[in-house]
């Protein structure tokens, strides 16, 4: 349960930050287009929800982090030296071993996924101008894919 919350909140943190940055980028891009004479003016509605979403997610993330850290500290069986981020399960030696295996699997998947993502920029160069979301969300997808891979591998190992 602890791991589910940790992974979910971390993914939400990446998504909310991306959505918030995307709004900012759209605005910046319109200003640049206006400066360069591509458009005479623009109007844009800035919705407050991406910022609120980010703030709420960050608060929940910090709160969950503190609660989990206290629990780990109180657990006399926990391997505290292995506790680096709160996605890591350090409740006992098997959990630490499973975490290590899951992290190494996720790392391998990330190496392949990053290669594909960087390669994909080559085939869709126009997207950078027309659709600024592409580089932003592909970058955000890298840690998200890593977290999902880590979560799946950990759960498979846990019930093995």
């Amino acid at each position, binding site marked *: 349960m602890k791991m589910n919350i940790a992974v979910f909140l971390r993914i939400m943190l990446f998504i909310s930050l991306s959505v918030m940055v995307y709004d900012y980028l759209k605005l910046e891009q319109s200003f640049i287009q206006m400066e360069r004479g591509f458009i005479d003016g623009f109007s844009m509605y800035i919705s407050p929800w991406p910022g609120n979403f980010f703030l709420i997610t960050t608060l929940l993330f910090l709160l969950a982090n503190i609660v989990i850290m206290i629990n780990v500290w109180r657990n*006399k*069986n926990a391997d505290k030296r292995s506790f680096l981020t709160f996605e890591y399960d350090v*409740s*006992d*030696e*098997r*959990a630490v071993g499973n975490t290590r295996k899951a992290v190494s699997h996720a790392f391998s998947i990330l190496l392949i996924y990053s290669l594909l993502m960087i390669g994909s920029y080559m085939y869709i160069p126009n997207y950078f101008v027309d659709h600024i979301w592409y580089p932003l969300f592909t970058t955000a997808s890298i840690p998200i894919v890593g977290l999902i891979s880590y979560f799946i591998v950990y759960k498979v190992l*846990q019930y*093995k």
Partner: protein
Amino acid sequence: MIKNRVKELRARFDYTQGELADIVGVTRQTIVALEKGSYTPSLLLAMNLAEVFKLPIEEIFTKEES
């Protein structure tokens, strides 16, 4: 491959999986995995189990050719 007698010894000592887990300082899931034979414990855990069951390690854990 390492085989173990944890399930048999636990029943003999009348411990539940949770109780044994608490005594040796692991989670219940680790005891479940040990009993299923899907997890090879660390030397420390093996020694703790040996202490609980009052047996030498080699009488609890045996090497089996796969």
